[in-house]
């Protein structure tokens, strides 16, 4: 039984299921749009100012959207207790985690893809630094949120007040990643400093926590 095969099969299954119940994605896309609009009403800066604060605003907005997506990571497995079927099978826990995390990455990236052009329009953003760097940054930053988010979504399956436990556990741990994401974005937008060290921090964060999640997920899955 192949680790990669199970990851691929699980990811494909999740994509198929997501596609079939499109109302969930549509609702979240609309929610993301709303977040951007609300932020724009709340903060209405000049073009010069916006480059300084946009980094923070955008990532907070992404965070809100991500939480909504992360909270339903395991929803389908909890329905009909499908998770039991997975646990009873000889398939290891790690490919399941990886597939769910990648699925969430794709999902949140889709939300970000909707929100970003809106932010650029509303805040008249034009990066003064190397704009292309924003793409790998977005991937690194989103993965940082999604890898721990998927993990703690599984942890919160065993708690009361599930939907509040996820952000409660996730936010404190995500602080260094958030500092990194926001400062790197600001550095690229204003072009005043180099984002290099911040990106290095994000890479370190991603590597460390992806490893931790992969190693400890099985323990969490098997906890009754």
């Amino acid at each position, binding site marked *: 039984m192949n680790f990669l095969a199970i990851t691929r099969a699980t990811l494909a299954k999740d994509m198929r299921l997501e596609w079939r119940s499109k109302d969930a994605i549509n609702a979240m896309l609309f929610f993301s749009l709303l977040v951007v609009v609300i932020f724009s009403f709340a903060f209405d800066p000049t073009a010069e100012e916006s480059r300084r604060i946009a980094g923070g605003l955008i990532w907070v907005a992404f965070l809100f959207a991500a939480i909504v997506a992360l909270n339903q990571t395991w929803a389908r497995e909890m329905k009909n207790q499908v998770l039991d079927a997975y646990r009873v099978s000889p398939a290891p826990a790690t490919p399941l985690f990886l597939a769910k995390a990648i699925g969430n990455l794709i999902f949140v990236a889709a939300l970000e893809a909707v929100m970003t052009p809106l932010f650029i329009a509303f805040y008249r953003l034009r990066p003064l630094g190397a704009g292309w760097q924003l793409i790998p940054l977005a991937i690194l930053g989103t993965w940082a949120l999604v890898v*721990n988010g998927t993990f703690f979504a599984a*942890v919160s399956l*065993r*708690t*009361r*007040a599930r939907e509040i*436990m996820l952000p*409660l*556990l996730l*936010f*404190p*741990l995500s*602080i*260094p*990643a958030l*500092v*990194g994401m926001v*400062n790197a974005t600001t550095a690229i937008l204003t072009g005043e*400093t180099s984002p290099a*060290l*911040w990106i290095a*921090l994000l890479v*370190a*964060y991603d590597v*460390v*926590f992806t490893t*931790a999640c992969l190693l*400890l997920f099985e*323990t*969490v899955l098997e*906890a*009754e």
Partner: protein
Amino acid sequence: MKRGFTILAVLTAILLSFAFYAALLIAPTEQTMGNVQRIFYYHVPSAWVAFELFLINFVASVIYLIRRSAKADMIALVCAEVGVVFCTVVLITGPIWARPVWGIWWTWDLRLTLTLVLWLIYVSYLVLRRFSMSSQTPLLAAVLAVFGALDVPMVYFSIWFFRTQHPSPVIGGGGSLDPRMGRVLLYNWIAFMALAWLICWTRYRLEVAERAVHEAEAMQSLKEEEAR
């Protein structure tokens, strides 16, 4: 056991009294800040003690993950709780000090920010322990503690780097320390450690007793039907 506890309690009382006296009367008055600066002797040792307790929690959590020892779990729980208390002291004394001296309530300096993040992580740890419906709560908590420990160096680095780009006042003084002040700081640190040890010991005994009661109840319910 009981005697050791009493000895520690007495010792702690003595150390705390002496440290208090030292902080108020032996330590020289700081030249720019005046007597307000004396809160430094509470602020800094509390932070050190909190960090030590969290470190013990991390080690105990790792031991629990490897050996599933109930004792390790109890130590982890106790250190987390007492650590959060000392952390709270740091977060309250910080602003109390900062306001009269620098006119601000808060600054994102390294120690204060790190303390805040640790406080957040460990409060979330305690919430997880309380809200968990799993029969393997200690396991989930230990996993969270490991994640927290992995996070700390990254928090440190991210704040440090941010500060190099955006310098701001450092609460707690960055410069060199008068050796007399250093000595008083040491006395207070030792006294606080004794206090922390005392509180932890008490909490530990409480936890042992509580678990013994649960064990007994569980055993009782197991034997219930045998009487028939």
